[in-house]
């Protein structure tokens, strides 16, 4: 595939105004699926590994099977709608979206079409410098996920050219809420940043609501980013592309930036944008064309006759409204104050997408500064190096445990970093890693004194200097002792002992 021409980002923004739109799919973590009593793989308590084991006749669309709406999924959807500032429809309806595809067991998807459960909302999103942006929400509707296809034998992993394809229906019927924004204008050069902040805010909300695992790398949260450009001064929106498969916060930002630069180059050269879906490639940081998409795609929607309309009572809606957690922006203001972070420190946490992790780590007993230090430091570094989400690497409880071990003196910072590495490598809990790797600080003075005496004896010139009052010379001896102890000693105690033994 020919590499797309890109225009310099600032130049692109000079010529064109970007218009954004997002469709975010949230997998709800109900115990069972949207329309059947099959276990829901998006619920963390359901350990499902083998393909096609979390299925019932309903998930397979077997003849005669019928869907029944999961009440918990409806409650979750209402809560999410409320958190997005939406109105909740007293009557909403499921519809059938008809199209043939082998991952769709019935060859139609049960979704909501012209009567979604939530509509007309607005979400406050905070940018990195604290600027607040209101993102207009068009609707949030319920639907079922499709199965998963694995294309075997082709070079691209896509269906084109594959010898055969395998279908896993475990995901078929997982409850989804699709959140659709209205066109977002005015973001200008901060469009990529806004894209990331928007998805990040949705992630914070669904986590705070406890309605989704919200792990992007697992597909719990999936973002399709619509981007179009219009020449400066033009009223009418340009032709948009829809970039799919964007499964990390960083990718959302990069994909939007890439599409702005790609489209600008085409438009500036007098070309036209094809309305299509595009696939994001994490490795190359580029998008490639998917299938053409037009507004004329005919899904032959009609009301799902197997299901009754969804009619939540006003009392239920109010009950769920009262139970809503704090809005993310308000929560951030409160936490910043409680933790005593500087603007910079707090923004660092938020912008790394680690607010929930830090908060959970603090809740598990760690000091706020320590929690911040580990998440934005060592863990973020490993996450960056391995292209993973920090949250997927280690749990807040384990981080808190490590912090406690350092506080108690059982671990040095250096040892603690090894423990973090061990936990991430899957070697077990911090205590297990400490035990297995033998990382506990040596607090037996006897062993330390022997090592100190040996080190002093082998460096008589240093011993002289110390005795002459040049205390800073002790560093060389301390280093030798630490090395001899394999790093498993408390450097402060070693220093005390060096000075003590040198004086004798």
């Amino acid at each position, binding site marked *: 595939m020919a590499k797309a021409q890109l225009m310099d980002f600032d130049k692109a923004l000079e010529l064109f105004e970007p218009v954004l739109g997002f469709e975010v799919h949230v997998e709800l973590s109900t115990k069972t699926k949207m329309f059947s009593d099959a276990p829901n793989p998006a619920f963390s308590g359901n350990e499902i590994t083998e393909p096609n084991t979390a299925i019932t*006749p309903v998930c*397979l*669309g*077997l*003849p*005669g*099977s*019928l*869907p*029944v*709406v999961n009440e918990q999924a409806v409650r979750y959807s209402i809560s999410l709608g409320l958190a997005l500032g939406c109105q909740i429809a007293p009557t909403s309806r499921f519809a*059938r979206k*008809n199209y*043939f595809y*082998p991952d769709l*067991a*019935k*060859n*139609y998807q049960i979704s909501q079409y012209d009567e979604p459960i939530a509509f007309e909302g607005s979400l406050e999103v905070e940018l990195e410098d604290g600027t607040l942006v209101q993102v207009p929400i068009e609707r949030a509707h319920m639907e079922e996920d499709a199965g998963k296809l694995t294309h075997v034998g082709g070079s691209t992993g896509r*269906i084109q050219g594959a010898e055969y*394809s395998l*279908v896993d229906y475990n995901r078929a019927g997982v409850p989804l809420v699709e959140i659709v924004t209205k066109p977002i204008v005015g973001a200008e050069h901060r469009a990529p940043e806004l894209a990331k902040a928007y998805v990040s805010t949705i992630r914070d909300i669904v986590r705070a609501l406890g309605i989704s695992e919200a792990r992007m790398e697992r597909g719990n949260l999936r973002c399709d980013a619509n981007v179009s450009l219009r020449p400066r001064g033009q009223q009418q929106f340009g032709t948009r592309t829809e970039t799919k498969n964007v499964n990390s916060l960083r990718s959302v930002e990069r994909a939007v930036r890439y599409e702005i630069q790609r489209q600008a180059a085409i438009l500036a050269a007098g070309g036209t944008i094809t309305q299509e879906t595009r696939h994001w490639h994490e490795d190359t940081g580029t998008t490639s064309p998917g299938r053409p998409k037009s507004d*004329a795609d*005919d899904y*032959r*929607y*009609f009301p799902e*006759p*197997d*299901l*009754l309309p969804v009619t939540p009572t006003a009392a239920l809606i109010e009950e769920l409204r009262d139970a809503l957690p704090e809005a993310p922006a308000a929560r951030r203001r409160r936490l910043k104050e409680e933790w005593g972070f500087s603007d910079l420190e707090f923004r660092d946490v938020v912008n790394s997408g680690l607010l929930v992790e830090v908060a959970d780590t603090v809740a598990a007993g760690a000091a706020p500064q320590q929690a911040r230090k580990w998440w934005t430091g060592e863990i973020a570094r490993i996450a960056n190096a391995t292209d993973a989400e920090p949250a997927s690497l280690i749990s807040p409880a384990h981080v808190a445990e490590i912090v406690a071990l350092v506080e108690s003196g059982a671990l040095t910072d250096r040892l603690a970093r090894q423990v973090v590495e061990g936990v991430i490598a899957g070697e077990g809990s911090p205590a297990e890693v400490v035990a297995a790797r033998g990382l506990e600080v040596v607090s037996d003075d006897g062993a330390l004194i022997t090592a100190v005496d040996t080190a002093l004896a082998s460096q008589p010139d240093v011993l002289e200097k110390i005795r002459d009052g040049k205390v800073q010379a002790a560093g060389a001896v301390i280093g030798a002792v630490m090395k001899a102890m394999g790093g498993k000693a408390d450097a402060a105690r070693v220093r005390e002992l060096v000075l003590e033994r040198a004086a004798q």
Partner: protein
Amino acid sequence: MSAADLTRATAADLAHRLSTGEVSSVEVTQAHLDRIAAVDGDVHAFLHVSEHALDTARQVDADRAAGLALPELAGVPIAIKDVLCTLDMPSTSGSKILEGWVPPYDATVVARLRAARMVPLGKTNMDEFAMGSSTEHSAYGPTKNPWDLERIPGGSGGGSAAAVAAFEAPVALGSDTGGSIRQPGAVTGTVGVKPTYGGVSRYGAIALASSLDQVGPVSRTVLDAALVHDVIGGHDPRDATSIPDQWPSMAEAARRGLTGDALKGLRVGVVRELEGDGFQSGVKQRYHETLDLLAGAGAEIVEVSCPHFEYAVAAYYLILPAEASSNLAKFDSVRFGLRANVTGTVEDVMGATREAGFGPEVKRRIILGTYALSAGYYDAYYGSAQKVRTLIQQDFDAAFEQADILVSPSAPTTAFKFGEKLADPLAMYLNDVTTIPANLAGVPGMGLPMGLAPEDGLPTGLQLMAPARHDARLYEVGAAIEQLLEGQWGQPLWSQAPALATALGSNGGAR
């Protein structure tokens, strides 16, 4: 007691004799299996005869001998329309695309039959995916009308109706989307009920048109239908359209009809739009005789008008194909059923499978429905049809203010000959003109024998309709009318059916 007596007995009678120990379920079941072997080569009511029937019967007998308390119909055989999923028998819905498919689950109604310890005899023939009024659209060949083997048994549930009319089963299950229980009942001289929509679970009934489909009983007497209805009816959490209400006993209602004076003062609404042009003279004659009889028994005959019934067939043939086109999309070879042996893309295989697996009537309706749902046509077709549906519901509401029960002939004609309407789909569709309104409105309807048409000596049927959720009223009134008519005839209609030639041995042709 002779085997012939056992096959001509009603389910209620068999249940009684089984409970007293006069006969065993094995004897009753064997008698019906023998009858199937003897006549089904000609009738072809069954697509599959169960290999487990005698074992099931034996277990019921053993439990009875052990003194276990058993449900009323325990040990009574029953035939099951092939539209229903059964764990131990293929379930094809009359289509090649599902040939040999054995579902991994029982339809709720089938599970309830088993829980009631009834004995499934086999699966009955039907028009493919219940699309038709004659069983001529079955992929496995038509069923013959036991009254005249040259004629259709009605459809789509011709197999269940013929099985009961030919004494191959005392009772059967059917499904009724636009008349598939009641119209076969009319032309075979049997009883059939389409319950209130939501009254009987659809879970495991292979869907034709989800908003219209309803499973119901097929029998030779109103009481037998009521007994089966009590077994299969009631709320099912697996069907979201299932009504959660508690239902009264239909059997008690039928028994009240047989003993009380249900007809006295009953306001019987004669639907003006459901007779006239296109109705066979013998059907009209029997219909008016029956109305006179009802008046004589103290009923008040009132004429009611349902002006929008005129549009019912047109609306039905938009809603049904639209829903069916979507319901039948799942037959794509990926997970079950036929797979055409072609190479190419998955779309090529899907297309070739559907081309090979669906018959012409199914294809016709898929195309109609796909068109009706297409962007730009939706409002004009599907949307308008739904509005007609609302108007028909309002017609019913108004009519039921004037009448306790509505009546019409169950079908405009007696059984027609094979091939007579095959080339003219519209003529075939009009055969359901009387039955379709009840499906569109979701109200219950019953068909029961109304005598033989003088000109051809073939059965005619009377249709009763009640307000939604008042199925019990149908059974009470139906049983009373049945008794009144049989009093006139001196015997049940079905006992006048011509004897069928019987084949000896078990090579009767049923598979």
